[in-house]
C-alpha cells in the first residue's frame, strides 16, 4: 500500500526505492507551485535519477543537496525524504527558509545511487557502490565518492575493483556521477553543494585529495563551526568538523573537492549520526532525530549562502 499523501508517509521507518519514488511524485502533486521533479539522467541499470526542485521564481541561483550516494547508508535517503517534506511544509511558514527560497532554488537528490539502493533491498544489504560491472573482474561497482575529477586516481582511492573504494577506470565513468557533473555544469550557478553520507558525525569541507588548504578555508571553517553548534543544540550530538584530509583521511576523487574546484564555494559533506553501536545500520527510530539535527546545520549553511553572495 502506498501512502495517500506525504502527510501519511511514515518518516520514522525505512522505505524501498519505489516507495521513495512514489513519495517524490506525491510531493510534486501536492505542491505544484513549489516543487517539481527533474530527471537528470539514468543509472547504469536504467533507473531515473530523480531530483526534486524547490523553486519560487525563474533564473535563481541554486543550492544542491544529495543523499544516499553510498547505497547502504539508509539513514541518508531517509533523512533526504524528511528534508523534502520539511522544505515543502516550512516554505511560507518559516521566515528563514522562506527567505532562502525567495532567492534560491533548492535541488534535492534523495536517492543518488538508485541501483545500489535497490540492490541493498533485494540482494545485499551491505552493498555500498554503484552496480556497473567491471570488465575483467568478478567484482562490480565503483565507489561514486572516488569517481570525480578531483585528484582522481590519487592516494585514498583504490584501483582494485573488489575494493569498497574502487575509483573506476576514469573520472565520471559512473552515470550516477556524470549526471550530476552535467547538471552542475549546465546549471552554472550553484552556490552551495552539500553531499550527505553516514556515519561518524562529521561536517567536512574541501580538500580530501590534497593537504593544501582551500582558499576559503577560514570562512568554510567558521560556517562549519556554527552549523555544528546548531546541530548539537538539538540533541547534544557531537560532531567533528574541518577539511576532509585533516579530519578523516586522504580521499581522492571526492564529490565536494570537484564541486569546490568548479567554483561552488560552499561545498560541504556530512557524515551523519552514529550511536556508537550500530554504524550505518541505524535503528529506524533514529531517522527523524538525525534528520532534525542535520536540518539545523543545513539551515546555517543555506542561510550563510544567502547572506554572502559571490
Amino acid at each position: 500500500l502506498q501512502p495517500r499523501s506525504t502527510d501519511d508517509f511514515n518518516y520514522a521507518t525505512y522505505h524501498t526505492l519505489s516507495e521513495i519514488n512514489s513519495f517524490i511524485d506525491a510531493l510534486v502533486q501536492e505542491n505544484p507551485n513549489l516543487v517539481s521533479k527533474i530527471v537528470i539522467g539514468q543509472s547504469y541499470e536504467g533507473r531515473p535519477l530523480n531530483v526534486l526542485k524547490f523553486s519560487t521564481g525563474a533564473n535563481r541561483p541554486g543550492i544542491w543537496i544529495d543523499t544516499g550516494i553510498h547505497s547502504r547508508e539508509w539513514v541518508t535517503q531517509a533523512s533526504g525524504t524528511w528534508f523534502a517534506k520539511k522544505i515543502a511544509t516550512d516554505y511560507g511558514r518559516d521566515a528563514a527558509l522562506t527567505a532562502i527560497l525567495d532567492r534560491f532554488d533548492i535541488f534535492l537528490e534523495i536517492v543518488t545511487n538508485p541501483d545500489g539502493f535497490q540492490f541493498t533491498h533485494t540482494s545485499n544489504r551491505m552493498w555500498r557502490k554503484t552496480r556497473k560491472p567491471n570488465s575483467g573482474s568478478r567484482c562490480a561497482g565503483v565507489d561514486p565518492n572516488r569517481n570525480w575529477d578531483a585528484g582522481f586516481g590519487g592516494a585514498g582511492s583504490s584501483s582494485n575493483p573488489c575494493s569498497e573504494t574502487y575509483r573506476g577506470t576514469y573520472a565520471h565513468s559512473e552515470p550516477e556521477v556524470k549526471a550530476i557533473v552535467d547538471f552542475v555544469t549546465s546549471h552554472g550557478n550553484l552556490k552551495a553543494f552539500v553531499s550527505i553520507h553516514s556515519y561518524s558525525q562529521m561536517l567536512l569541507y574541501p580538500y580530501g585529495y590534497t593537504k593544501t588548504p582551500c582558499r576559503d578555508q577560514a570562512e568554510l571553517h567558521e560556517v562549519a563551526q556554527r552549523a555544528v553548534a546548531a546541530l548539537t543544540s538539538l540533541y547534544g550530538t557531537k560532531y567533528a568538523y574541518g577539511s576532509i584530509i585533516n579530519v578523516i583521511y586522504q580521499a581522492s576523487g571526492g564529490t565536494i573537492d570537484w564541486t569546490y574546484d568548479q567554483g561552488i564555494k560552499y561545498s560541504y559533506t556530512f557524515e551523519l549520526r552514529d550511536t556508537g553501536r550500530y554504524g550505518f545500520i541505524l535503528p529506524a527510530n533514529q531517522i527523524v532525530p538525525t534528520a532534525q539535527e542535520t536540518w539545523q546545520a543545513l539551515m546555517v549553511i543555506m542561510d550563510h549562502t544567502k547572506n554572502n553572495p559571490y
Partner: protein
Amino acid sequence: KENFVGHQVLRITPKNEAEVILLKELSQLEHLELDFWREPIDVSLPVDARVPFHSLQPVRSFLAYNEIHYDIMIADLQDLLDAEQQEMTKSRA
C-alpha cells in the same frame, strides 16, 4: 538474498601507529573478506570492520596476538537486519 548470520562488526581501537600499520596489513588479506566500515587511518580514529563468520577466529587471533584492543559493536549482523526488516513490515501494516 545475502545472509549475514554470524557476521560481527568489531570496533578496533589502535593505540599507536604500529597497530594502525598492522590493521592496514590485516585489511589487505583478501581471503578474510573483511568489510571496513571505518578504515585504519590514524590512532585518533577507531576502526570498524565487518567480519564474516568464517574469518572471526583468525581475526580475533590476529588481534589478540598483537594485543590490539577491540570491542564487539554488533554481535550478529543478521539479527539487526532482521529487526530492521520486521520494523519495515510492521510500518507498512
